[in-house]
C-alpha cells in the first residue's frame, strides 16, 4: 500500500460571481509525478493555491501527510512550489534571491543554493540579475526555489510555459531526476497533455472547476489505445471464446465490456464467434483515440 502524501476531499473555492473549483477530490501518492491537466481557466492554479495555502477553501478539506487543519498548515514546510509566474526580486541575482529565501526559511546550509542552481542548469547565471533573465531561465529559477530545502512534495504550475523544445526536454529530465534521485513527489499542471504524458504516472483532468477523471498512466494508455470494444451479457464466456479463436491480448472492463488489443483480431470474426455460441452481443466497435482527442472527449462530456 503506497503512502498518500496529499489528498483533497470535496475541495471547493467560490468567488463572488463564480466557482473556480467545485467538489474536487484528488489523491497523490508518495513518489508520484502527478499531472494536473486542464484548459486555461479550468481551475488548475486555484487547486494548487488551495493546496499550498495561497487561498482558503470555501468548503472541503486538504489532508497533507495524513494531517488536516493547523497540523497540515505546519506540514506545508515540506512543500516546495512555483505557482503561476516565477517571481523574484529583479534587482538581485539568482544567488541572492535564493539566499534571501534560505534566510527566510532558516536554511543554514548555503551549499544548497548552488546545488539547486546546478540542478536546473543555472550555475552560469548565478550572479546575473533576475530582471535580465529570459522566461525560460525564470522558470528554472522558480524550480530551483521550489527544491531549495529538499521538500517532500514539489508543486509546479505550468512550469513549461515559455520554454523552447530543448528547455522542455531538459526540464523533463529534471523532473525525472527529482523523483528518482531525491524521492520527491511532483505535482505538475499543464494544459499540454502530451508534455505531461511524457513524465507523469498519474493524471487528474479538470474542466470548469470540476474534476473529470483521475487516472493512472496505464489506465490512460488503455483508454487511448486502438482496440475493439466488445459489450456482451457474459464477459466470462466471451473471454473464453476470444481465447478460443487465438486472441490473448484483451482486458475485461467493468459493465460487461471487453477490450481487444490484439492487432490481428477482426471484428466480424469476433461477432460471428459470439453469436454462434449464443452470447448476447450488445455492442461491438473499434475504438482508440489520441491523447488530445481523449481530452477533447472528456471536456466535451462536461460541456454537454
Amino acid at each position, binding site marked *: 500500500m503506497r503512502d498518500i502524501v496529499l489528498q483533497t476531499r470535496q475541495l471547493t473555492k467560490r468567488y463572488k460571481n463564480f466557482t473556480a473549483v467545485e467538489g474536487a477530490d484528488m489523491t497523490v501518492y508518495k513518489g508520484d509525478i502527478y499531472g494536473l491537466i486542464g484548459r486555461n481557466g479550468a481551475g488548475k492554479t486555484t487547486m494548487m493555491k488551495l493546496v*499550498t*495555502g*495561497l*487561498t482558503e477553501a470555501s468548503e472541503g478539506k486538504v489532508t497533507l501527510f495524513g494531517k488536516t487543519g493547523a497540523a497540515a*498548515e505546519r506540514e*506545508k*514546510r515540506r*512543500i*516546495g*512550489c512555483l*505557482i*503561476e*509566474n516565477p*517571481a*523574484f*526580486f*529583479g*534587482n*538581485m541575482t539568482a544567488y*541572492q534571491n535564493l*539566499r*534571501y*529565501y534560505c*534566510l*527566510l*526559511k*532558516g536554511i543554514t546550509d548555503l551549499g544548497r543554493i548552488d546545488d539547486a542552481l546546478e540542478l536546473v542548469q543555472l550555475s552560469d547565471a548565478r550572479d546575473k540579475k533576475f530582471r535580465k533573465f529570459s522566461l525560460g531561465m525564470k522558470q528554472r529559477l522558480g524550480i530551483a*526555489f521550489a527544491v531549495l*530545502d529538499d521538500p517532500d512534495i514539489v508543486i509546479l504550475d505550468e512550469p513549461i510555459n515559455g520554454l523552447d523544445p530543448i528547455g522542455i526536454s531538459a526540464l523533463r529530465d529534471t523532473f525525472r531526476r527529482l523523483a528518482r534521485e531525491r524521492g520527491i513527489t511532483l505535482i505538475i499542471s499543464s494544459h499540454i497533455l502530451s508534455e505531461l504524458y511524457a513524465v507523469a504516472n498519474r493524471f487528474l483532468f479538470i474542466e470548469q472547476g470540476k474534476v473529470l477523471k483521475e487516472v493512472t498512466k496505464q489506465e490512460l494508455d488503455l483508454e487511448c489505445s486502438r482496440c475493439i470494444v466488445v459489450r456482451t451479457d457474459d464477459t466470462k464466456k466471451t473471454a473464453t471464446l476470444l481465447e478460443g479463436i487465438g486472441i490473448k491480448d484483451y482486458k475485461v472492463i467493468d459493465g460487461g465490456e471487453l477490450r481487444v488489443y490484439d492487432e490481428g483480431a477482426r471484428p466480424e470474426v469476433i461477432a460471428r464467434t459470439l453469436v454462434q455460441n449464443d452470447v448476447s452481443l450488445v455492442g461491438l466497435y473499434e475504438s482508440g483515440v489520441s491523447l488530445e482527442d481523449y481530452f477533447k472527449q472528456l471536456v466535451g462530456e462536461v460541456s454537454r
Partner: protein
Amino acid sequence: MINMSKAELYRIVKSRGFILFWLLSIGTLMISVIYHQTGGISLGAPLDYDESIKMDIRQTAMNFSFYFYLMIPVFTIISGEFGEHTVKNSITSAFSKRGFYVAKFFFTFVYTMLCFLAANYFFYFINKAVNGEEYSSPIGEYSKALFAQVPLFMAVVAAFIFLAFLLRKGAAFNAVTIITPILYTSVLLALYSIESTKKIATKLLNYELSTMIGKLTIDGTDSYKARCYAASAAVIVLSFALGYFSWTKREID
C-alpha cells in the same frame, strides 16, 4: 520573525531604497550642520521657541521631513514585495498568511523606527563634533526632545504599513501617503477662511502633523502631548488591526 528579520536586512541593504533613505536623511541634516541653520518642511505655522534652544533641538522640531523619508523603507519592504509578486513565495514556503502579516508588520515597524532614531542620532553626534557646544545640547536633553516625537512617528509608520498592505501597488501607496498631510492642511485652511468653521479649523490645525512634531519637541503643553500620544496609540492599534483584516480577507494576486 528572526528569519524574516535576517532575510529582510539582507535584501534591504541591496535595495535602492536603502541608499536613498540614508542619502536624503543624512544629506539634508548635514546642510544644517554645515550652515548652522535649521531646515525642513512644515505645513503649519512657524514655531515660537526660546532662543536658548539650541540648533540640534530646533532641527529636530523640523522632523516632518522624516514623514516622507520613512515612506522609503516601508515601500521597499512591503510595496516592493507586492510589486515583484514575491509574497506568494513566502506564504507557500515559510509563513502562513497571518504569520506573514504579523512578522512583516513588526519587522517593518521596528526597522523603520530604528532608521529614524539612527539618522537623528547620527545628526546629533556629527553636529556636536563639527559645531561644538554652541550649536548642540546635552545628549539627555536632545534625547528627551527626540523621544517626545517617537510615539507620533510610530503611529505614522504603523499607518504606512497598513496602507502598504491595503493598497499593495507602490504608486497608490506613494500617492495616498504624500497627499494626505497636504490635503489635511488644505481642507483646514479652507475651513479657516469660513467664519463659521474657523474655530474648529484652528483647533484641528494644532493636530496637523508638522505642527504636532514641532509642539511635541518644543512647546507643547502636557495635556496637548497626552492627547497626541493617545491619538498615536489609537492609530497604531487601528492600523495593525485594519491591516490584518484587510490582508487576511483578500486574495493574493
